[in-house]
């Protein structure tokens, strides 16, 4: 307090006398980051995401200096930026790379928050606002994807917007409003451009601010049953300096990728070569894929039959995705044990099973083992088998790690997900039939697990 009083001269004093910021500074002085047996790494992911978002804002603004939205200008202006404007290729490459890196850090941030049960009271709104931010980041990716007006972006938008019609009651209206007509045309691009550079940035700045205020007010979440070994790390300046150092590392990584791999990794969903200009009358080319973070939905759409329970396949698939996303958003209210500050190994296992489910669908969408990732004629059976080998192999390694290193003992959801993958990929059952069998086995596996371990030994299992 003395320090604050002493500092009430100069610029600080001038501002404090007018706006009374001394209590706020005093509060920040005492803010600490929990330190204990858990890893500190997870606390940096939000900041890294924010850093990549800032890069998006800067490079996006630079791109706006030359980009012209229009039937005869969108594609041409991007080509002009990448071939004629000095360092234009670098600006676009950094914009694309930082978009992907932002989604990667956001996804890791979300899963680490989930595994640490940081969503438990009183941080339900922090989780919910984070979930909205993830949805908006995906919206940024989707709307920005169309702006180069090339072949790939055109068909990705056709497929993505067409899913809207599966929304009950307002689906048709939503499709019309989003596309600016019945089909994807240049009017769609105008609307997406407005979304990408005006609507979403305004909204996201508001929600990011809300998310940050909540974090600053409530502090970083401690793991369940946290036993501090010593006092926490001071947020200012100790944690903040580490954060800034990490941002510099991220900038170096981003710049290196942008310079040495300017058009992405060259695999579907992770490449941004301009390619051919969009032409609605040209057929979609074989092997066309959306961005990597939409691949699981793309593959799920393929796995659903033409009709299911009186619904059309896409309607049923979009319905399932909506339910899964809704459950994910409602996690703080579903996890009753975490609400009571108890370990909830079932929810940790749900997180691992979700990763396995998403990873398996993503690998399958790449058609690995079925003719290559760019293959025109894919052997679906061979691809399903190869995907199963990879998914089950990775699952086995993760189980070893969870069992022997983290000493977790609850694997029911992971087991059922792995069973579904094995039944589909190795025995050739239809994806949904395999899923139905795995769901039927779930309560039996849970019952057997409960009989095996009636009372969890103290300290066993991870939160």
């Amino acid at each position: 307090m003395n320090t604050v009083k002493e500092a009430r001269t100069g610029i600080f004093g001038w501002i404090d006398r007018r706006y009374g910021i001394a209590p706020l500074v005093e509060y920040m002085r005492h803010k600490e980051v929990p330190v204990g047996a858990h890893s500190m790494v997870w606390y940096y992911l939000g900041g890294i995401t924010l850093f990549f978002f800032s890069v998006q804002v800067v490079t996006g603004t630079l791109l706006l200096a030359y980009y012209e939205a229009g039937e005869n200008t969108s594609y041409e202006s991007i080509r002009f930026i990448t071939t004629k404007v000095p360092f234009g290729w670098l600006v676009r490459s950094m914009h694309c790379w930082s978009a992907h890196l932002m989604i990667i850090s956001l996804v890791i941030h979300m899963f680490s928050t989930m595994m640490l049960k940081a969503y438990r009271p009183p941080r339900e709104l922090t989780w919910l606002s984070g979930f909205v931010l993830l949805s908006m980041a995906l919206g940024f990716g989707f709307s920005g994807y169309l702006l180069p007006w090339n072949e790939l972006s055109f068909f990705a938008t056709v497929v993505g917007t067409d899913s809207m019609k599966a929304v009950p009651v307002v689906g048709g209206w939503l499709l019309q409003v989003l596309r600016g007509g019945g089909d994807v045309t240049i009017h769609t691009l105008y609307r997406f451009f407005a979304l990408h550079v005006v609507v979403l940035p305004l909204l996201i700045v508001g929600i990011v601010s809300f998310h940050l205020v909540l974090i600053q007010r409530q502090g970083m979440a401690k793991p369940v049953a946290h036993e501090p070994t010593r006092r926490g790390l001071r947020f200012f300046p100790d944690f903040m300096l580490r954060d800034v150092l990490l941002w510099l590392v991220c900038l170096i990584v981003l710049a290196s990728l942008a310079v040495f791999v300017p058009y992405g990794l060259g695999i579907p969903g992770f490449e941004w070569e301009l390619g051919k200009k969009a032409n609605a009358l040209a057929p979609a080319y074989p092997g066309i894929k959306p961005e990597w973070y939409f691949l699981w939905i793309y593959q799920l759409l393929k796995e659903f039959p033409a009709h299911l329970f009186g619904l059309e396949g896409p309607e049923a698939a979009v319905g399932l995705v909506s339910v899964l996303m809704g459950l994910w958003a409602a996690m703080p209210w579903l996890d009753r044990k975490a609400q009571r500050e108890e370990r909830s190994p079932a929810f940790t296992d749900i997180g691992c099973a979700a990763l396995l489910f998403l990873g398996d669908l993503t690998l399958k969408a790449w058609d690995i083992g079925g003719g290559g990732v760019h293959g025109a004629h894919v052997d679906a059976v061979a691809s399903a088998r190869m995907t199963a080998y990879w998914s089950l192999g990775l699952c086995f390694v993760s189980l070893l790690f969870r069992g022997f290193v983290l000493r977790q003992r609850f694997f029911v959801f992971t087991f059922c997900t792995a069973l579904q993958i094995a039944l589909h990929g190795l025995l050739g059952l239809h994806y949904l039939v395999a899923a139905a069998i795995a769901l039927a086995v779930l309560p039996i596996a849970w019952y057997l697990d409960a009989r095996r371990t009636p009372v969890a030994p103290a300290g066993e299992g991870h939160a």
Partner: protein
Amino acid sequence: MVLGLGVFGLLASIVYPVLRYLKPLGAGGQSDPVKLTKEEAAKLDREHSVVIRGGFGRVLIFEDGNQNLKALDARCTHEGCTVQFVPGDANIVCACHNGRFDLDGRNIAGPPPRPLAQHTVVREADGTIVVAPGRKATQV
């Protein structure tokens, strides 16, 4: 209660015009017949198929094995990608999710839930090809 109604009325008077503004004009599309241009007709002769844009959407026109002209909606009934005619396969294919249709537009493989809508196509005496919207889809 009165205040609540007032607030609702105020919001509705702002939101409704915005929503009406965003809904595109002529959302239903036009249904006038379309004549193929010389370039489109030449492409049809050369490649046995062509996709054109009519007021009623994208239309695939192709010649089947018996040299008969056929016209189908070119938008896959699964997710709306543009389909293509594969002469060797005698199939209509959508590359987005591996959907397949027969030459009458019936969905025969993959995830498409419905057949492609059929349109009427005629070659007039002067050689002009005219496509008119038709709804003769065959349910599977």
